[in-house]
Protein backbone atom coordinates (compact mmCIF):
# COMPACT_ATOMS: atom_id res chain seq x y z
CA UNK A 1 0.00 0.00 0.00
CA UNK A 2 2.69 2.42 1.05
CA UNK A 3 4.85 1.37 -1.81
CA UNK A 4 2.07 2.05 -4.31
CA UNK A 5 1.59 5.58 -2.94
CA UNK A 6 5.30 6.17 -3.15
CA UNK A 7 5.33 4.95 -6.75
CA UNK A 8 2.42 7.22 -7.65
CA UNK A 9 4.10 10.15 -6.02
CA UNK A 10 7.34 9.67 -7.90
CA UNK A 11 5.41 9.34 -11.17
CA UNK A 12 3.43 12.48 -10.46
CA UNK A 13 6.50 14.51 -9.76
CA UNK A 14 7.43 15.84 -13.21
CA UNK A 15 3.90 17.21 -13.62
CA UNK A 16 3.77 18.79 -10.19
CA UNK A 17 7.18 20.34 -10.71
CA UNK A 18 5.68 22.42 -13.52
CA UNK A 19 2.31 23.13 -11.95
CA UNK A 20 3.48 25.19 -8.95
CA UNK A 21 5.29 27.55 -11.29
CA UNK A 22 2.15 28.25 -13.27
CA UNK A 23 0.12 28.54 -10.11
CA UNK A 24 2.82 30.77 -8.68
CA UNK A 25 2.84 33.14 -11.64
CA UNK A 26 -0.97 33.28 -11.75
CA UNK A 27 -0.92 34.10 -8.08
CA UNK A 28 1.80 36.71 -8.59
CA UNK A 29 -0.37 38.23 -11.33
CA UNK A 30 -3.35 38.35 -8.96
CA UNK A 31 -1.22 39.80 -6.19
CA UNK A 32 0.08 42.49 -8.51
CA UNK A 33 -3.41 43.46 -9.63
CA UNK A 34 -4.64 43.62 -6.04
CA UNK A 35 -1.62 45.69 -5.06
CA UNK A 36 -2.17 48.02 -8.04
CA UNK A 37 -5.86 48.43 -7.22
CA UNK A 38 -5.08 49.15 -3.57
CA UNK A 39 -2.26 51.59 -4.27
CA UNK A 40 -4.36 53.45 -6.86
CA UNK A 41 -7.14 53.73 -4.30
CA UNK A 42 -4.69 55.07 -1.70
CA UNK A 43 -3.36 57.58 -4.21
CA UNK A 44 -6.73 59.07 -5.09
CA UNK A 45 -7.73 59.01 -1.41
CA UNK A 46 -4.60 61.04 -0.63
CA UNK A 47 -6.03 63.97 -2.64
CA UNK A 48 -9.61 64.06 -1.39
CA UNK A 49 -10.52 67.48 -2.77
CA UNK A 50 -9.30 66.91 -6.35
CA UNK A 51 -10.80 63.42 -6.33
CA UNK A 52 -14.17 64.66 -5.07
CA UNK A 53 -14.22 67.32 -7.77
CA UNK A 54 -13.43 64.85 -10.55
CA UNK A 55 -15.93 62.30 -9.28
CA UNK A 56 -18.67 64.94 -8.96
CA UNK A 57 -18.16 66.21 -12.51
CA UNK A 58 -18.20 62.64 -13.81
CA UNK A 59 -21.30 61.69 -11.86
CA UNK A 60 -23.20 64.73 -13.17
CA UNK A 61 -22.21 63.79 -16.71
CA UNK A 62 -23.67 60.33 -16.04
CA UNK A 63 -26.76 61.38 -14.08
CA UNK A 64 -28.03 63.90 -16.61
CA UNK A 65 -28.65 61.50 -19.52
CA UNK A 66 -29.90 58.90 -17.05
CA UNK A 67 -32.59 61.26 -15.76
CA UNK A 68 -33.49 62.03 -19.35
CA UNK A 69 -33.86 58.33 -20.13
CA UNK A 70 -35.94 57.74 -17.02
CA UNK A 71 -38.27 60.55 -17.99
CA UNK A 72 -38.52 59.14 -21.47
CA UNK A 73 -39.19 55.64 -20.23
CA UNK A 74 -42.06 56.94 -18.12
CA UNK A 75 -43.45 58.93 -21.04
CA UNK A 76 -43.36 55.79 -23.21
CA UNK A 77 -45.24 53.87 -20.57
CA UNK A 78 -47.84 56.61 -20.50
CA UNK A 79 -48.15 56.44 -24.27
CA UNK A 80 -48.56 52.67 -24.06
CA UNK A 81 -51.58 53.01 -21.76
CA UNK A 82 -53.64 54.34 -24.67
CA UNK A 83 -54.15 50.87 -26.06
CA UNK A 84 -57.14 51.90 -28.12
CA UNK A 85 -55.19 54.31 -30.24
CA UNK A 86 -55.54 52.25 -33.43
CA UNK A 87 -59.28 52.77 -33.33
CA UNK A 88 -61.36 55.43 -35.04
CA UNK A 89 -63.69 57.30 -32.71
CA UNK A 90 -66.84 58.48 -34.46
CA UNK A 91 -68.91 61.03 -32.51
CA UNK A 92 -72.45 61.13 -33.81
CA UNK A 93 -74.81 64.10 -33.96
CA UNK A 94 -77.65 64.10 -31.42
CA UNK A 95 -80.66 62.06 -32.52
CA UNK A 96 -78.63 60.12 -35.11
CA UNK A 97 -79.51 56.43 -35.27
CA UNK A 98 -76.37 54.98 -33.71
CA UNK A 99 -77.51 51.34 -33.94
CA UNK A 100 -78.18 51.55 -37.66
CA UNK A 101 -74.87 53.25 -38.46
CA UNK A 102 -73.03 50.67 -36.38
CA UNK A 103 -74.80 47.80 -38.15
CA UNK A 104 -73.96 49.32 -41.56
CA UNK A 105 -70.26 49.70 -40.63
CA UNK A 106 -70.03 46.15 -39.30
CA UNK A 107 -70.71 44.77 -42.77
CA UNK A 108 -67.61 46.40 -44.25
CA UNK A 109 -64.61 44.19 -44.98
CA UNK A 110 -61.88 46.39 -43.50
CA UNK A 111 -63.65 46.74 -40.16
CA UNK A 112 -63.07 44.19 -37.46
CA UNK A 113 -65.55 45.43 -34.89
CA UNK A 114 -67.72 48.39 -34.00
CA UNK A 115 -68.41 49.26 -30.40
CA UNK A 116 -71.34 51.48 -29.57
CA UNK A 117 -71.02 53.88 -26.67
CA UNK A 118 -74.24 55.47 -25.53
CA UNK A 119 -74.09 58.98 -24.00
CA UNK A 120 -74.69 57.39 -20.58
CA UNK A 121 -71.72 55.05 -20.96
CA UNK A 122 -69.58 57.89 -22.20
CA UNK A 123 -70.45 60.06 -19.22
CA UNK A 124 -69.71 57.25 -16.80
CA UNK A 125 -66.34 56.59 -18.41
CA UNK A 126 -65.45 60.26 -18.42
CA UNK A 127 -66.43 60.57 -14.78
CA UNK A 128 -64.28 57.64 -13.67
CA UNK A 129 -61.19 58.35 -15.76
CA UNK A 130 -60.79 62.04 -16.32
CA UNK A 131 -60.55 63.27 -12.78
CA UNK A 132 -63.35 65.77 -13.37
CA UNK A 133 -66.03 63.77 -11.52
CA UNK A 134 -66.89 66.68 -9.22
CA UNK A 135 -67.21 69.14 -12.08
CA UNK A 136 -69.53 66.77 -13.94
CA UNK A 137 -71.90 66.66 -10.98
CA UNK A 138 -73.04 70.21 -11.67
CA UNK A 139 -74.23 69.33 -15.20
CA UNK A 140 -77.99 69.10 -15.45
CA UNK A 141 -78.04 67.11 -18.65
CA UNK A 142 -75.62 64.80 -20.44
CA UNK A 143 -73.71 66.82 -23.05
CA UNK A 144 -72.05 63.79 -24.60
CA UNK A 145 -73.12 62.40 -27.95
CA UNK A 146 -73.30 58.73 -28.79
CA UNK A 147 -70.03 57.41 -30.12
CA UNK A 148 -68.84 54.50 -32.18
CA UNK A 149 -65.43 52.97 -31.62
CA UNK A 150 -64.45 51.45 -34.95
CA UNK A 151 -61.62 48.95 -34.87
CA UNK A 152 -59.99 48.22 -38.17
CA UNK A 153 -58.61 44.86 -39.12
CA UNK A 154 -54.86 44.75 -38.40
CA UNK A 155 -54.18 44.20 -42.11
CA UNK A 156 -56.39 47.08 -43.26
CA UNK A 157 -53.54 49.53 -43.71
CA UNK A 158 -53.29 53.30 -43.57
CA UNK A 159 -54.95 54.17 -46.94
CA UNK A 160 -58.07 52.20 -45.99
CA UNK A 161 -58.16 53.93 -42.62
CA UNK A 162 -57.72 57.35 -44.23
CA UNK A 163 -60.49 56.81 -46.79
CA UNK A 164 -62.82 55.51 -44.08
CA UNK A 165 -62.08 58.57 -41.91
CA UNK A 166 -62.75 60.75 -44.95
CA UNK A 167 -66.00 58.99 -45.80
CA UNK A 168 -67.30 59.11 -42.22
CA UNK A 169 -66.42 62.79 -41.98
CA UNK A 170 -68.78 63.55 -44.87
CA UNK A 171 -71.64 61.54 -43.34
CA UNK A 172 -74.43 63.92 -42.22
CA UNK A 173 -75.06 61.89 -39.06
CA UNK A 174 -71.46 62.24 -37.95
CA UNK A 175 -70.34 65.20 -35.92
CA UNK A 176 -66.63 64.45 -35.53
CA UNK A 177 -64.23 61.70 -36.52
CA UNK A 178 -61.18 61.28 -34.35
CA UNK A 179 -58.48 58.99 -35.59
CA UNK A 180 -56.14 58.47 -32.63
CA UNK A 181 -53.41 56.91 -34.72
CA UNK A 182 -52.60 60.36 -36.01
CA UNK A 183 -51.71 61.94 -32.70
CA UNK A 184 -50.24 58.67 -31.58
CA UNK A 185 -47.87 58.86 -34.51
CA UNK A 186 -47.03 62.41 -33.51
CA UNK A 187 -46.45 61.33 -29.92
CA UNK A 188 -44.19 58.51 -30.96
CA UNK A 189 -42.34 60.88 -33.30
CA UNK A 190 -41.85 63.31 -30.43
CA UNK A 191 -40.72 60.50 -28.14
CA UNK A 192 -38.30 59.28 -30.80
CA UNK A 193 -36.90 62.78 -31.11
CA UNK A 194 -36.50 63.08 -27.35
CA UNK A 195 -34.93 59.61 -27.26
CA UNK A 196 -32.44 60.58 -29.96
CA UNK A 197 -31.67 63.80 -28.12
CA UNK A 198 -31.04 61.81 -24.95
CA UNK A 199 -28.75 59.42 -26.83
CA UNK A 200 -26.77 62.28 -28.36
CA UNK A 201 -26.56 63.99 -24.99
CA UNK A 202 -25.38 60.75 -23.41
CA UNK A 203 -22.74 60.29 -26.11
CA UNK A 204 -21.49 63.87 -25.72
CA UNK A 205 -21.39 63.58 -21.94
CA UNK A 206 -19.70 60.17 -22.10
CA UNK A 207 -17.06 61.78 -24.32
CA UNK A 208 -16.72 64.61 -21.80
CA UNK A 209 -16.35 62.00 -19.04
CA UNK A 210 -13.57 60.31 -21.03
CA UNK A 211 -11.81 63.66 -21.37
CA UNK A 212 -12.15 64.42 -17.66
CA UNK A 213 -10.76 61.02 -16.69
CA UNK A 214 -8.10 61.25 -19.38
CA UNK A 215 -6.97 64.65 -18.18
CA UNK A 216 -6.88 63.56 -14.54
CA UNK A 217 -4.87 60.48 -15.43
CA UNK A 218 -2.58 62.58 -17.65
CA UNK A 219 -1.77 64.87 -14.71
CA UNK A 220 -1.18 61.80 -12.58
CA UNK A 221 1.19 60.37 -15.20
CA UNK A 222 3.08 63.66 -15.45
CA UNK A 223 3.38 63.81 -11.68
CA UNK A 224 4.89 60.34 -11.67
CA UNK A 225 7.04 60.77 -14.77
CA UNK A 226 10.26 59.96 -12.93
CA UNK A 227 8.81 56.84 -11.36
CA UNK A 228 7.56 55.70 -14.76
CA UNK A 229 10.94 56.31 -16.34
CA UNK A 230 12.74 54.33 -13.64
CA UNK A 231 10.30 51.45 -13.98
CA UNK A 232 10.80 51.45 -17.73
CA UNK A 233 14.58 51.41 -17.25
CA UNK A 234 14.15 48.38 -15.01
CA UNK A 235 12.31 46.59 -17.79
CA UNK A 236 8.67 47.28 -16.98
CA UNK A 237 6.37 46.62 -19.91
CA UNK A 238 3.86 49.25 -21.06
CA UNK A 239 1.14 47.11 -19.51
CA UNK A 240 2.88 47.06 -16.13
CA UNK A 241 3.41 50.83 -16.14
CA UNK A 242 -0.13 51.44 -17.34
CA UNK A 243 -1.81 49.21 -14.77
CA UNK A 244 -1.99 51.53 -11.74
CA UNK A 245 -3.40 54.29 -13.94
CA UNK A 246 -6.07 51.97 -15.31
CA UNK A 247 -7.08 51.20 -11.75
CA UNK A 248 -7.15 54.92 -11.00
CA UNK A 249 -9.56 55.39 -13.91
CA UNK A 250 -11.59 52.39 -12.76
CA UNK A 251 -11.94 53.80 -9.26
CA UNK A 252 -13.00 57.20 -10.57
CA UNK A 253 -15.61 55.43 -12.69
CA UNK A 254 -16.88 53.30 -9.81
CA UNK A 255 -17.17 56.27 -7.45
CA UNK A 256 -18.79 58.45 -10.11
CA UNK A 257 -21.27 55.63 -10.81
CA UNK A 258 -22.13 55.33 -7.13
CA UNK A 259 -22.56 59.07 -6.81
CA UNK A 260 -24.72 59.35 -9.93
CA UNK A 261 -27.01 56.54 -8.70
CA UNK A 262 -27.24 58.42 -5.40
CA UNK A 263 -28.01 61.67 -7.22
CA UNK A 264 -30.79 59.99 -9.17
CA UNK A 265 -32.12 58.58 -5.91
CA UNK A 266 -32.15 62.10 -4.46
CA UNK A 267 -33.99 63.48 -7.52
CA UNK A 268 -36.50 60.63 -7.30
CA UNK A 269 -37.04 61.29 -3.59
CA UNK A 270 -37.47 65.02 -4.21
CA UNK A 271 -40.09 64.41 -6.91
CA UNK A 272 -41.86 61.54 -5.16
CA UNK A 273 -44.30 63.75 -3.18
CA UNK A 274 -45.58 65.96 -6.04
CA UNK A 275 -45.69 62.96 -8.41
CA UNK A 276 -47.77 60.94 -5.95
CA UNK A 277 -50.25 63.83 -5.76
CA UNK A 278 -50.42 64.03 -9.54
CA UNK A 279 -50.99 60.30 -10.09
CA UNK A 280 -53.54 60.23 -7.25
CA UNK A 281 -55.49 63.03 -8.92
CA UNK A 282 -55.65 60.85 -12.02
CA UNK A 283 -57.04 57.98 -9.99
CA UNK A 284 -53.69 56.07 -10.17
CA UNK A 285 -54.29 55.36 -13.84
CA UNK A 286 -50.57 55.63 -14.43
CA UNK A 287 -47.54 55.16 -12.23
CA UNK A 288 -44.05 56.59 -12.33
CA UNK A 289 -41.08 54.27 -11.91
CA UNK A 290 -37.54 55.07 -10.87
CA UNK A 291 -34.22 53.40 -11.58
CA UNK A 292 -34.46 49.63 -11.11
CA UNK A 293 -31.66 47.75 -9.27
CA UNK A 294 -30.57 46.20 -12.56
CA UNK A 295 -30.33 49.73 -13.98
CA UNK A 296 -28.18 50.79 -11.04
CA UNK A 297 -25.75 47.96 -11.70
CA UNK A 298 -25.71 48.83 -15.38
CA UNK A 299 -24.86 52.44 -14.49
CA UNK A 300 -22.05 51.27 -12.20
CA UNK A 301 -20.71 48.92 -14.84
CA UNK A 302 -20.87 51.49 -17.61
CA UNK A 303 -19.27 54.10 -15.40
CA UNK A 304 -16.43 51.80 -14.37
CA UNK A 305 -15.87 50.82 -18.00
CA UNK A 306 -15.81 54.48 -19.00
CA UNK A 307 -13.21 55.20 -16.31
CA UNK A 308 -11.05 52.31 -17.43
CA UNK A 309 -11.31 53.29 -21.08
CA UNK A 310 -10.51 56.97 -20.42
CA UNK A 311 -7.43 55.98 -18.43
CA UNK A 312 -6.38 53.42 -21.03
CA UNK A 313 -6.57 55.91 -23.90
CA UNK A 314 -4.47 58.47 -22.03
CA UNK A 315 -2.01 56.06 -20.47
CA UNK A 316 -1.33 54.25 -23.74
CA UNK A 317 -0.57 57.55 -25.42
CA UNK A 318 1.63 59.06 -22.73
CA UNK A 319 3.50 56.04 -21.46
CA UNK A 320 4.76 54.98 -24.88
CA UNK A 321 6.69 58.26 -25.09
CA UNK A 322 9.30 56.92 -22.69
CA UNK A 323 10.62 54.29 -25.10
CA UNK A 324 12.93 54.71 -28.08
CA UNK A 325 11.47 53.71 -31.42
Amino acid at each position, binding site marked *: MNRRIAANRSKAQPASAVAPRNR*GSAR*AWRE*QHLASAASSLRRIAARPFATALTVTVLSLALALPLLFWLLLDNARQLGGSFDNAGAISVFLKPHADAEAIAARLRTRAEIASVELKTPEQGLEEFRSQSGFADALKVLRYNPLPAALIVNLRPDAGEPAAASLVDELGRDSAVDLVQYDAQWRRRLSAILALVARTADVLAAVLAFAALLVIGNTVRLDIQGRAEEIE*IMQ*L*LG*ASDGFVRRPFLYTGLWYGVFAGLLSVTLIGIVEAALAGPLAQLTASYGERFSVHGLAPSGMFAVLGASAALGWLGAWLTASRHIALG*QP*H
Partner: protein
Amino acid sequence: MIRFEHVSKRYASGHDALAELSFELAPGEMAFITGHSGAGKSTLLKLIALIERPTRGQIVVGGRNLADVRRRGIPEVRRSVGMVFQDHRLLLDRSVFDNVAMPLVIAGASREEVAKRARAALDKVGLLARERTQPAALSTGEQQRVGIARAIVSKPAVLIADEPTGNLDPQLSAEVMALFGEFQQVGTTVLVASHDLPLVKRMGKRVLVLDHGRLIDDYRPGPGANA
Protein backbone atom coordinates in the same frame (compact mmCIF):
# COMPACT_ATOMS: atom_id res chain seq x y z
CA MET B 1 28.53 38.45 -24.08
CA ILE B 2 28.58 42.00 -25.36
CA ARG B 3 29.76 42.67 -28.91
CA PHE B 4 29.89 46.04 -30.69
CA GLU B 5 30.53 45.98 -34.44
CA HIS B 6 31.32 49.31 -36.09
CA VAL B 7 28.79 51.10 -33.96
CA SER B 8 28.18 54.80 -34.58
CA LYS B 9 25.69 57.00 -32.83
CA ARG B 10 24.73 60.45 -34.00
CA TYR B 11 22.14 62.28 -31.94
CA ALA B 12 19.34 64.24 -33.58
CA SER B 13 21.25 67.39 -32.64
CA GLY B 14 24.03 66.32 -35.03
CA HIS B 15 26.45 65.43 -32.25
CA ASP B 16 28.49 62.31 -33.01
CA ALA B 17 28.65 60.47 -29.70
CA LEU B 18 30.22 57.24 -30.97
CA ALA B 19 32.10 56.49 -34.17
CA GLU B 20 32.99 53.07 -35.60
CA LEU B 21 33.18 51.46 -32.20
CA SER B 22 34.04 47.76 -32.09
CA PHE B 23 34.88 45.60 -29.09
CA GLU B 24 33.83 42.38 -27.47
CA LEU B 25 33.36 41.37 -23.86
CA ALA B 26 33.47 37.66 -23.01
CA PRO B 27 30.95 36.14 -20.60
CA GLY B 28 32.04 36.81 -17.03
CA GLU B 29 34.52 39.47 -18.10
CA MET B 30 34.77 42.82 -16.32
CA ALA B 31 35.83 46.00 -18.07
CA PHE B 32 35.93 49.73 -17.44
CA ILE B 33 35.17 52.44 -19.95
CA THR B 34 37.03 55.66 -19.35
CA GLY B 35 37.52 58.90 -21.20
CA HIS B 36 36.85 62.57 -20.80
CA SER B 37 33.34 63.70 -20.19
CA GLY B 38 31.40 63.63 -23.44
CA ALA B 39 33.63 60.90 -24.86
CA GLY B 40 30.62 58.63 -25.32
CA LYS B 41 30.75 56.46 -22.18
CA SER B 42 27.12 57.00 -21.24
CA THR B 43 25.95 56.61 -24.83
CA LEU B 44 27.71 53.25 -25.05
CA LEU B 45 25.88 51.99 -21.97
CA LYS B 46 22.58 53.43 -23.16
CA LEU B 47 22.89 51.44 -26.39
CA ILE B 48 23.29 48.20 -24.42
CA ALA B 49 20.13 48.92 -22.42
CA LEU B 50 18.24 50.08 -25.54
CA ILE B 51 17.73 53.52 -24.06
CA GLU B 52 19.17 54.70 -27.37
CA ARG B 53 19.51 53.03 -30.75
CA PRO B 54 22.73 53.10 -32.78
CA THR B 55 22.78 55.07 -36.04
CA ARG B 56 24.98 52.41 -37.65
CA GLY B 57 26.50 49.10 -36.71
CA GLN B 58 25.43 46.05 -34.74
CA ILE B 59 25.23 45.36 -31.04
CA VAL B 60 24.85 41.80 -29.81
CA VAL B 61 24.11 41.16 -26.15
CA GLY B 62 23.84 37.62 -24.83
CA GLY B 63 23.63 36.30 -28.40
CA ARG B 64 20.77 38.62 -29.31
CA ASN B 65 21.18 41.28 -31.99
CA LEU B 66 19.58 44.38 -30.51
CA ALA B 67 18.66 45.64 -33.99
CA ASP B 68 16.10 42.80 -34.11
CA VAL B 69 14.44 43.93 -30.88
CA ARG B 70 11.23 45.78 -31.55
CA ARG B 71 9.73 48.29 -29.17
CA ARG B 72 7.65 45.65 -27.43
CA GLY B 73 10.76 43.58 -26.82
CA ILE B 74 12.71 46.35 -25.10
CA PRO B 75 11.44 45.60 -21.56
CA GLU B 76 12.65 42.02 -21.84
CA VAL B 77 16.14 43.16 -22.87
CA ARG B 78 16.27 45.61 -19.98
CA ARG B 79 15.21 42.92 -17.52
CA SER B 80 18.24 40.89 -18.58
CA VAL B 81 20.63 43.79 -17.95
CA GLY B 82 21.26 45.16 -14.46
CA MET B 83 21.78 48.91 -14.49
CA VAL B 84 23.45 51.16 -11.92
CA PHE B 85 23.21 54.93 -12.34
CA GLN B 86 25.39 57.72 -11.02
CA ASP B 87 22.41 59.39 -9.34
CA HIS B 88 21.17 55.93 -8.18
CA ARG B 89 17.60 56.73 -9.41
CA LEU B 90 15.77 55.29 -6.44
CA LEU B 91 12.08 55.90 -5.82
CA LEU B 92 12.14 58.17 -2.80
CA ASP B 93 8.57 57.47 -1.74
CA ARG B 94 9.22 53.77 -1.28
CA SER B 95 11.25 51.82 1.22
CA VAL B 96 14.69 50.41 0.48
CA PHE B 97 13.13 46.95 0.30
CA ASP B 98 10.47 48.06 -2.23
CA ASN B 99 13.11 49.70 -4.39
CA VAL B 100 15.26 46.59 -4.49
CA ALA B 101 12.21 44.38 -5.05
CA MET B 102 11.02 46.44 -8.05
CA PRO B 103 12.74 44.42 -10.82
CA LEU B 104 11.33 41.18 -9.38
CA VAL B 105 7.83 42.63 -9.11
CA ILE B 106 8.14 43.82 -12.70
CA ALA B 107 9.24 40.34 -13.76
CA GLY B 108 6.14 38.90 -12.06
CA ALA B 109 7.76 36.93 -9.25
CA SER B 110 5.61 35.70 -6.37
CA ARG B 111 5.64 37.56 -3.08
CA GLU B 112 7.76 34.95 -1.26
CA GLU B 113 10.26 34.86 -4.10
CA VAL B 114 10.45 38.67 -4.12
CA ALA B 115 11.00 38.83 -0.36
CA LYS B 116 13.65 36.11 -0.38
CA ARG B 117 15.69 37.49 -3.26
CA ALA B 118 15.38 41.16 -2.33
CA ARG B 119 16.69 40.37 1.17
CA ALA B 120 19.51 38.30 -0.29
CA ALA B 121 20.50 41.23 -2.54
CA LEU B 122 20.33 43.69 0.35
CA ASP B 123 22.41 41.33 2.46
CA LYS B 124 24.97 41.18 -0.33
CA VAL B 125 25.46 44.98 -0.24
CA GLY B 126 25.35 45.00 3.58
CA LEU B 127 22.06 46.88 3.97
CA LEU B 128 19.68 44.18 5.14
CA ALA B 129 19.15 46.01 8.44
CA ARG B 130 17.92 49.10 6.59
CA GLU B 131 15.23 47.43 4.45
CA ARG B 132 12.37 49.42 6.04
CA THR B 133 14.19 52.76 5.73
CA GLN B 134 13.29 55.39 3.14
CA PRO B 135 16.16 56.00 0.67
CA ALA B 136 16.31 59.69 1.61
CA ALA B 137 17.38 58.72 5.13
CA LEU B 138 20.45 56.88 3.81
CA SER B 139 23.90 58.27 3.06
CA THR B 140 24.97 58.72 -0.57
CA GLY B 141 27.12 55.60 -0.41
CA GLU B 142 24.27 53.56 1.04
CA GLN B 143 21.88 54.86 -1.62
CA GLN B 144 24.31 53.74 -4.29
CA ARG B 145 24.53 50.32 -2.69
CA VAL B 146 20.74 50.08 -2.74
CA GLY B 147 20.93 50.92 -6.44
CA ILE B 148 23.44 48.11 -6.92
CA ALA B 149 21.28 45.67 -4.96
CA ARG B 150 18.39 46.58 -7.26
CA ALA B 151 20.56 46.02 -10.34
CA ILE B 152 21.65 42.52 -9.28
CA VAL B 153 18.49 41.31 -7.54
CA SER B 154 17.19 39.42 -10.56
CA LYS B 155 20.65 37.92 -11.22
CA PRO B 156 21.19 39.46 -14.67
CA ALA B 157 23.93 38.06 -16.88
CA VAL B 158 25.11 41.59 -17.65
CA LEU B 159 25.66 44.42 -15.18
CA ILE B 160 26.33 47.93 -16.47
CA ALA B 161 27.10 50.96 -14.36
CA ASP B 162 27.38 54.59 -15.39
CA GLU B 163 29.75 56.51 -13.11
CA PRO B 164 28.62 54.55 -10.05
CA THR B 165 31.21 56.27 -7.85
CA GLY B 166 30.75 59.75 -9.27
CA ASN B 167 29.26 61.11 -6.07
CA LEU B 168 31.27 59.08 -3.58
CA ASP B 169 34.43 59.75 -1.59
CA PRO B 170 37.50 57.60 -2.41
CA GLN B 171 36.93 55.03 0.30
CA LEU B 172 33.26 54.47 -0.56
CA SER B 173 34.22 54.38 -4.24
CA ALA B 174 36.70 51.61 -3.58
CA GLU B 175 34.06 49.66 -1.66
CA VAL B 176 31.53 49.99 -4.46
CA MET B 177 34.08 48.94 -7.09
CA ALA B 178 35.06 45.94 -4.97
CA LEU B 179 31.38 44.99 -4.97
CA PHE B 180 31.36 44.99 -8.79
CA GLY B 181 34.45 42.78 -8.68
CA GLU B 182 32.53 40.29 -6.54
CA PHE B 183 29.72 40.09 -9.05
CA GLN B 184 32.20 39.34 -11.78
CA GLN B 185 33.53 36.48 -9.70
CA VAL B 186 30.11 34.82 -9.67
CA GLY B 187 30.00 34.95 -13.46
CA THR B 188 28.32 38.26 -14.22
CA THR B 189 29.63 40.27 -17.16
CA VAL B 190 30.36 43.73 -15.76
CA LEU B 191 30.89 46.97 -17.69
CA VAL B 192 31.53 50.12 -15.68
CA ALA B 193 31.90 53.64 -17.07
CA SER B 194 34.14 55.75 -14.86
CA HIS B 195 36.48 58.69 -15.19
CA ASP B 196 38.18 57.88 -11.89
CA LEU B 197 41.42 56.68 -13.51
CA PRO B 198 43.43 55.92 -10.35
CA LEU B 199 40.61 53.75 -9.04
CA VAL B 200 40.16 52.02 -12.38
CA LYS B 201 43.90 51.26 -12.51
CA ARG B 202 43.87 49.83 -9.00
CA MET B 203 41.10 47.39 -10.01
CA GLY B 204 43.47 45.79 -12.52
CA LYS B 205 40.78 44.98 -15.07
CA ARG B 206 40.43 45.56 -18.79
CA VAL B 207 40.03 49.23 -19.68
CA LEU B 208 38.45 50.65 -22.83
CA VAL B 209 39.45 54.27 -23.41
CA LEU B 210 37.15 56.46 -25.46
CA ASP B 211 38.03 59.79 -27.02
CA HIS B 212 35.42 61.75 -28.92
CA GLY B 213 33.44 58.59 -29.53
CA ARG B 214 36.38 56.54 -30.77
CA LEU B 215 38.07 53.64 -29.03
CA ILE B 216 41.69 54.78 -28.66
CA ASP B 217 42.93 52.15 -26.25
CA ASP B 218 41.92 48.66 -25.13
CA TYR B 219 44.18 47.91 -22.21
CA ARG B 220 44.23 44.38 -20.86
CA PRO B 221 46.18 43.72 -17.69
CA GLY B 222 48.65 40.89 -17.85
CA PRO B 223 48.12 37.67 -15.91
CA GLY B 224 48.66 38.14 -12.22
CA ALA B 225 47.58 41.75 -12.31
CA ASN B 226 44.01 40.57 -11.88
CA ALA B 227 43.21 41.39 -8.28
